[in-house]
């Protein structure tokens, strides 16, 4: 059945597709979970809708309320859609070095954007949103970095969907941002598949984004629990771009740049399993499609040109 009462009902149950050409052998297979097939086109729809519904159940959100959220884009877009359908106002604090498509989409969905400085990246957006929340105690900050409903969405939906479609799963690979996808899906899979490897791919940006004044201004999301992970890789823009392009050239999947970083880590795990002569079924998250990143230059020219164009941008 693929009929729903409203767009919100069409959340999740995304396809898991094999990548026969990128997989090293018939024994070591890669599987892509197409999260771009969600209502606003990203994995963040799951967290956004779960966080809103949890806040409604707790009585924090009532019609007419204002939601405030620090976001580099996708969570904001998901929240903006859900807020529109449920009758809330949305204010997003977003770093100014994110793509123009994200700003245009947020504005179209009716969200208001408060820009935060490029230097310091999302850290600055989080700090600013916390300050604004203090000034507006009646606004509701869902706070994706620490809201248990973010991880719970993946524990209840993403994890069970993957296990249903791939009972032989050996590895789960996803991007590390708020950590919600990895914590929720990872916890569920660890309970059901004892030897599962949970691999994090963390985007490594240009220096501007790490421009803190002091190490003590660093940030680790409250949701993060390292014991859920087997390992964690830092993936730079060059590798992320290379894999994003490979994914479309070899398997026909047009994904965003953070997915390239995730595929890079998935291929490393695949290579390791193949070398060790082990069977592996590796599922990874396609976080969103490439549409919102066309203006970054990631999909045009040489790899070196695309890498130069991404310098200083929050590309994941």
């Amino acid at each position: 059945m693929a009929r729903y009462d409203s767009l919100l009902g069409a959340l999740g149950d995304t396809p898991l597709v094999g990548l026969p050409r990128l997989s090293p052998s018939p024994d070591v297979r890669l599987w892509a979970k197409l999260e771009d097939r969600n209502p606003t086109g990203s994995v963040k729809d799951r967290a956004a809708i779960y966080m809103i519904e949890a806040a409604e159940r707790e009585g924090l959100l009532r019609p007419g309320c204002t939601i405030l959220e620090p976001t580099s884009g996708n969570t904001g877009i998901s929240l903006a859609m859900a807020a529109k359908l449920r009758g809330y106002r949305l204010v997003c604090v977003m770093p100014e070095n994110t793509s123009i498509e994200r700003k245009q989409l947020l504005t179209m969905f009716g969200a208001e954007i408060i820009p935060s400085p490029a230097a310091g990246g999302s850290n600055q957006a989080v700090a600013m949103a916390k300050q604004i929340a203090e000034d507006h105690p009646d606004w509701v900050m869902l706070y994706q970095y620490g809201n248990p409903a973010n991880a719970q969405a993946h524990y209840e939906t993403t994890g069970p969907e993957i296990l249903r479609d791939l009972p032989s799963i050996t590895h789960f690979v996803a991007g590390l941002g708020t950590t919600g996808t990895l914590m929720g899906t990872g916890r569920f899979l660890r309970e059901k598949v004892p030897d599962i490897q949970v691999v994090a791919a963390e985007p490594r940006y240009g220096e501007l984004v790490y421009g803190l004044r002091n190490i003590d201004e660093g940030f680790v999301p409250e949701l993060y629990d390292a014991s859920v992970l087997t390992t964690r890789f830092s993936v730079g823009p060059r590798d992320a771009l290379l894999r994003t392009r490979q994914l479309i050239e070899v398997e026909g999947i047009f994904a965003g740049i953070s997915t390239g970083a995730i595929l890079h880590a998935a291929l490393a795990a695949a290579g390791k399993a193949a070398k060790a002569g082990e069977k592996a079924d590796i599922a990874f998250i396609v976080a969103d499609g490439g549409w919102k990143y066309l203006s970054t230059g990631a999909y045009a020219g040489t790899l070196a040109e695309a890498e130069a164009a991404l310098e200083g941008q929050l590309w994941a």
Partner: protein
Amino acid sequence: MAIEVRIPTILRTYTGGAKTVDGAGDTLEGLFVDLDGKHPGLRDRLIKDGALHRFVNVYVNDEDVRFTGALETTLNDGDSVTILPAVAGG
């Protein structure tokens, strides 16, 4: 044995502004001791109460050392070490 270490902007006051420095050591701990000899004070910014500072991430060949033995992570000639402050994503 040479190991290339990438230094984040906020710690370059210790390396005379250098983005990368060379170091030596069989383990990450050994590397930090070696680096501290050449760039005094650097080690104190990376380690707190005998463990890696909560807001410091260190990667050997792009893998987070907290999953490979932390300060006891073994190093080999030609390894690349990246030090970064922990920042928010999402």
